Structure formats: structure tokens, C-alpha cells
């Protein structure tokens, strides 16, 4: 029987192990699938939205950037044109409000020169030249009185157009400068008022404009010669490396690709032509700087997307872990429940078996009793019997009765035990009840050298409780107490009852002299599946079931223990169970 039991438990354990392994795979698969699903559901729309926003914003920002570049170039053009226009109108006004003869006098010319430069020194010299290219008068830092300009390009141009603004040139002075000249025809004779523009003021107007770290502004003439020094790569009067387009109206914006050989990064270039003179205003900036805001925004979007993705991942993992944990807990609970059911089922089948056995024994017992009675009747009916024999016989027959009654008590206890496998709330005399339970296990315990010491308080009030469940608890505690004496030759189990009127209940104490429970394990004794018995010996469910039964019956159980000294379980049971338990029991009965 024991061998079979062992084989049974080992296959059972293997089965549980296999089940656990399968569950582990299942949890892992569930975790993966669920996590992937959530990630797909979260991340795909997230990236779609991110991509959409990014594309739209880049387009929008580029348009805005281009527009602002456009405005910047236009503004600069206007400023330069205004500067040149102002100078030319001053010259024009002077020429037309003063006669040639008046201005030909150096003192008068000096006065006019002074007046023009009154607010700002905008011209460096001023000369009056007749139609043959000779200076009539000159005010300025250089000695140019004997210069003849008849063959000079500018002379021809101004004579033709009436106004001329030259490109930058070195001229006699060997510094870059440009001149402005207007003509006036007085009494059929044309004369020229010519001024050299203060290039310092003019150049600062263009060269001092800084746009960010990489932006530059410069002017080119139609031949592609720098009219102002660019901020990088080049100087005034040098030839620009970039080809110059022919004159056009309005502003053009281009993106120049990077030139790795010349170490020129990708640039955005805006260009516009001045009306007079035909100079091209160029505004340039590194693409990366000009669009840094856009890039910055792009990067921000990317970081945001990344953070969202990470957050999603973390949340996914947490949620999924939580869900797996919930499922795992549910499974564990289901396991515990099925184990409890198994235990209950075992108990019920043991009960059924013992009921059958007890019943079968009752029949022969009944016959033995009738036989005894027949003999007794015979003894009574036969007066001639030897007195000695009669006495012996009657004594013998009374012993038969005693032994039959003993058998009867055993079978009755067994039957009562089996009957208690169904739950009913009924009145229980606790002392009587405990005596029956003790009687049931006493013989078995005696073989292990364990004696029971009941100390039951007389006149204990009857309890309204579930005897079948109570029996399970008591048997469990006693079995545990007996098992706790493993390795000890003898011991005792002290069982006492005491009424506790204050709390309207009874206190039952089971104290054994067994091996005790360590302080560490003491906290866990009521946990399901906790056992110190070897694998296959205990389910670890006994005390947890006891605990839940006592709680269900409205009672309480506590434990004290000392290693090698013994363990004391104290159970409190109320006089009557909680009303909800009674109601549920009644409902079950009615069903």
C-alpha cells in the first residue's frame, strides 16, 4: 500500500513539474505576444504621427526661412540704394542750384564740400570738370588738378547719361573707391560735378552686416569683382570664384551644394541686382545655420519620439508583467483550490469506505449479540445446570457483550467520522466531540509512544458549528502533533478546553512535546504549500486549510512554538458561527 502510494505521488510530482514547465513557457509566450501587440499598437501610430508632423513642419519652416531671407536681401538692397540715391540727389541738387562759375571758385567749392559733409563725411573729395575733361576746381586730399579725364570711361558715360556711378576702382589713389558724377548744361556748355564717395562709410554699410556666425553680405559688379570685402573667402577688387548671372529683376534664392574640395559647406544664397549701378547684392549663409531652428525642431521631434517609444516600452513591460503576474496568481489559486478539492475528495472517499466497512461489521456483531442472548435464554431455561458452569458461562457471555459494545463504539465512531464529511451546522458538544476524535486516533498514536492528556472543562456550553470541518481541523492538528514527535521515543499531546464567555466562545488548546517550529517558519505555517516535510510526504495544505476553516467558522487560530520543546496551537471557536455562514449553509441545504 505504501509503495503504491509512493509511486503514485512521484508520478503526480512529475506531472506537476511538467505542468509548471508548460506554464512557464505559456507565460513567456503570453508576455512576448502581449508586449509585441502593445508595441505595434502604440509605436506604429506614434511614428506615423511623428513623421507627418516632421515633414509638415520642415516644409513650413523652410518656406518661412526662405521668406525671411528674401526680406533680408530686399531690405539691404533698399538701404544701399537709399544711400546711393541720397548721395546722387545731393550732387544733383548742388549742380543745379549753383552755377559753374560759382563752383569753379575753390573757396565756394570748399564751402559746398563742407556743407555736404556737415552731418556725415560722406564724400572724400569734390571736383568741377569742364566738358573737355579738365578740372576747374578741386577740393580733396589729393592733388588732381592737372589730371585730364577726356579718355576716362566714366567721363564718357556721364557725358552720355547725365548721372554716373562707377564700379570700385583703384584709380590714382591706389585704394578702392568709386565716384559719382552728374552733369549740368548751362548756357549750352556742359560741366560735371564729380565726387568720390567715402568708401569707408559705404563699405561699412555692407560689410558690417553680420548674419549669424556664417552669414555674409557683399556686392559684386557685372564682371564678378567684389565691390565690398566679403566676410569669408575673398577681398574687395578680387574676382569672385562664383560665376555671376546676367542682370535680372527681383530676388533669387538658391541652395548651393557643399564643395568638399574648397571646404565650403552647403549654403543658402540670395541675390538681387541694384538698379544703379548694376551691382549684385549677395547674402549667403551656411545652410546648417540658416536652418538650425528647423534642424533643432527636427531633433526635438526625434527626441520626443524616442522618449515616447521608450516610455511605451517601459509601460508595456510593466503592464504585461503585471498581467502575467495576475494570471500566475490566478493559476496558483486555482491549483490550491484543486488541491483542496483533491484533499476533500480523498477525505470523502475515506469516509465512504469506512462507512461501508463499519456497516458490514455491524451485521456480524448483531448476530453475535443474538447468539449471546440465545445462550443466556438457554441458561435461564435450564435450571439443572451446574452453578459453577453457569457462573462461568454468564461471565463469559457478559465479556462477549463488553467486547461487542467496544466494537460497536469503534464502528459508530467510524460512521460518525464518515457522516461528518458533509457540511452541516449543528449543535456540537465539544468535549464529547474531542473525546471521539481522540478515540479515533489514540491507538495509532500509542504505537508511536504518544499519549493524550485531555483536560476538558466541565459544563462547556454546546457550540453551533460544522462538525465535519471541525473534525478535519482537529484530526489535522493531532496528526501534525504526532508527526512532530518523529525521532522521539515518546511524547504527549495535551488537549484542553476552556469557555470564554467574554468573547462568547470556547478556547481549545493543542500542545505537543514535539520538535517545534523555528521562528522563521512560524510566520509561514498557515501559508498554502508551505511544508517542511520531504517532497511527496506533505502537501503543505493542512494548516492552511485549518486556518481557512477556523476563519470561516468565525474563529481564530494562533501558534506558539519553541524548537525541541513543542508547539501550541490555540483555537478560538464562537458559540455560534457568523450569520452569513449559517445562511449560505441553509441555502445549500434547500437546494
Amino acid at each position, binding site marked *: 500500500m505504501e509503495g503504491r502510494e509512493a509511486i503514485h505521488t512521484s508520478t503526480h510530482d512529475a506531472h506537476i513539474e511538467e505542468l509548471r514547465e508548460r506554464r512557464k513557457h505559456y507565460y513567456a509566450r503570453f508576455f512576448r505576444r502581449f508586449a509585441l501587440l502593445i508595441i505595434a499598437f502604440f509605436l506604429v501610430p506614434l511614428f506615423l504621427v511623428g513623421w507627418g508632423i516632421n515633414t509638415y513642419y520642415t516644409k513650413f519652416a523652410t518656406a518661412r526661412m526662405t521668406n525671411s531671407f528674401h526680406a533680408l536681401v530686399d531690405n539691404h538692397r533698399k538701404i544701399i540704394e537709399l544711400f546711393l540715391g541720397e548721395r546722387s540727389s545731393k550732387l544733383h541738387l548742388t549742380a543745379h542750384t549753383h552755377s559753374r562759375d560759382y563752383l569753379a571758385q575753390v573757396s565756394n567749392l570748399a564751402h559746398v564740400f563742407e556743407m555736404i559733409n556737415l552731418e556725415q563725411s560722406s564724400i572724400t573729395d569734390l571736383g568741377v570738370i569742364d566738358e573737355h575733361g579738365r578740372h576747374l576746381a578741386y577740393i580733396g586730399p589729393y592733388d588732381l588738378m592737372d589730371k585730364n579725364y577726356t579718355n576716362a570711361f566714366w567721363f564718357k558715360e556721364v557725358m552720355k547719361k547725365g548721372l554716373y556711378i562707377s564700379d570700385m576702382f583703384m584709380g590714382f589713389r591706389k585704394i578702392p573707391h568709386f565716384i559719382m558724377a552728374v552733369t549740368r548744361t548751362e548756357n549750352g556748355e556742359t560741366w560735371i560735378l564729380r565726387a568720390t564717395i567715402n568708401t569707408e562709410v559705404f563699405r561699412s554699410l555692407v560689410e558690417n552686416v553680420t548674419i549669424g556666425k556664417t552669414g555674409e553680405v557683399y556686392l559684386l559688379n557685372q564682371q564678378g569683382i567684389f565691390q565690398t570685402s566679403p566676410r569669408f573667402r575673398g577681398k574687395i577688387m578680387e574676382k569672385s570664384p562664383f560665376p555671376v548671372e546676367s542682370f535680372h529683376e527681383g530676388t533669387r534664392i538658391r541652395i548651393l551644394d557643399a564643395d568638399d574640395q574648397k571646404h565650403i559647406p552647403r549654403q543658402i544664397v540670395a541675390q538681387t541686382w541694384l538698379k544703379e549701378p548694376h551691382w549684385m547684392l549677395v547674402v549667403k549663409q551656411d545652410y546648417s545655420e540658416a536652418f538650425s531652428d528647423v534642424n533643432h525642431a527636427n531633433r526635438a521631434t526625434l527626441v520626443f519620439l524616442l522618449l515616447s517609444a521608450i516610455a511605451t516600452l517601459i509601460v508595456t513591460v510593466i503592464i504585461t508583467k503585471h498581467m502575467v503576474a495576475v494570471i500566475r496568481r490566478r493559476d496558483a489559486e486555482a491549483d490550491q483550490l484543486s488541491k483542496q478539492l483533491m484533499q476533500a475528495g480523498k477525505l470523502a472517499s475515506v469516509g465512504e469506505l469506512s462507512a461501508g466497512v463499519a456497516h458490514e461489521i*455491524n*451485521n456480524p456483531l448483531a448476530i453475535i449479540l443474538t447468539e449471546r442472548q440465545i445462550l443466556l435464554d438457554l441458561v435461564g431455561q435450564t435450571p439443572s445446570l451446574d452453578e459453577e458452569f453457569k457462573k462461568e458461562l454468564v461471565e463469559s457471555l457478559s465479556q462477549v457483550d463488553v467486547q461487542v459494545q467496544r466494537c460497536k463504539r469503534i464502528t459508530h465512531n467510524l460512521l460518525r467520522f464518515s457522516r461528518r464529511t458533509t457540511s452541516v451546522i449543528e449543535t456540537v458538544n465539544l468535549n464529547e466531540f474531542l473525546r471521539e476524535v481522540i478515540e479515533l486516533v489514540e491507538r495509532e498514536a500509542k504505537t508511536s509512544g504518544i499519549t493524550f492528556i485531555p483536560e476538558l472543562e466541565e459544563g462547556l456550553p454546546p457550540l453551533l458549528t460544522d462538525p465535519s470541518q471541525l473534525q478535519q481541523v482537529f484530526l489535522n492538528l493531532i496528526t501534525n502533533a504526532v508527526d512532530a514527535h518523529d525521532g522521539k521515543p515518546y511524547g504527549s499531546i495535551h488537549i484542553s478546553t476552556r469557555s470564554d464567555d467574554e468573547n462568547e466562545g470556547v478556547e481549545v488548546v493543542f500542545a505537543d512535546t514535539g520538535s517545534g517550529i523555528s521562528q522563521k517558519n512560524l510566520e509561514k505555517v498557515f501559508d498554502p504549500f508551505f511544508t517542511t516535510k520531504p517532497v511527496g510526504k506533505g502537501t503543505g495544505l493542512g494548516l492552511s486549510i485549518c486556518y481557512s476553516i477556523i476563519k470561516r467558522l468565525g474563529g481564530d487560530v494562533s501558534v506558539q512554538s519553541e524548537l525541541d520543546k513543542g508547539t501550541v496551537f490555540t483555537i478560538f471557536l464562537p458559540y455560534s458561527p457568523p450569520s452569513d455562514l449559517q445562511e449560505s449553509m441553509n441555502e445549500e441545504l434547500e437546494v
Partner: protein
Amino acid sequence: MIGARILLVDDEVVFTKNMAKLLTNRGYVVTPVNSGDSAIRELEENDFDVVVLDLKMPGMDGITTLKEIKKLGLFTETLILTGHGAIDTALEATKLGAYDYLTKPCEIDELVAKIEGAWEKKDDAQKDDIQEKIKKVVESPSSAFSLFGKKKSKK
């Protein structure tokens, strides 16, 4: 005076034989049978005051036999003998109209006391019935014919 007429129903042949001997010793007229079927047959053919019926029997069990007995509509009282574990069934039997129950194994004196009680009850019921019938005949003589009809069930 002649003791009660008892029908003893139990599948244990030795038990019925011994019990029959003991009860006969105590002045009863005992007919032992060993199955529900033969009990019903006996009851249909002869008059009994008390049936002592075992609940656990192969074939027709005690409860079914009791129901069959009740169907016969006799004044005979039934006393149930049962093992301790079958108290629920015993209680069910009393609900079905059994007089009382006893748990096996039982003392002969206990059994005799219960038999006496059952017999007395049967006699009283029979007397009441006759009185009632006489009363009815006095009130309406035409119903006198029913006296020769089927015996009225106690219930």
C-alpha cells in the same frame, strides 16, 4: 395471551433465525423472511401486527419495501433496524410512516420495548378506525357497504 404477530425482514439468514428464536422465547409469533419481495408476499397473504425491517438489503432495499408496505394500506406498524451510519435513511423511513428505528447491533430488551410500542399503536389505530366506521354507519347506513370494501389506509 398471544404475543404480537411479527414479520422479521433481514437478508442475514442467521440473524433472522436467531432473532426469531429469541422473540419466540419472549412470546411473539415470528415469521422470518430474507428479502423485501418475500416480505410483501407474506404481508399480502397473512396478517401481521409489526414488521421489523432491515434497511440495507440486496435486491429490494428497506426504503422501497417500506413504500410497498405502505401501498398495501395495512394497519401493520413498521420498525426499522439500521446501521449507525444510515441514520439519515432511518429518519427518511420514519417520515415515510415507519413507527421508529433502532441501530444495529441492539439489545433484545430494547427491541422488545419498541415492538410493544408499535403493537400498541397499531391496535389503537385499528380500534379508532372501527369506531369511526360504526359512527359513519349510524349517521348514514348506506355507507355500511364500504366496511366490506378495501381497508382504509392510516394516512
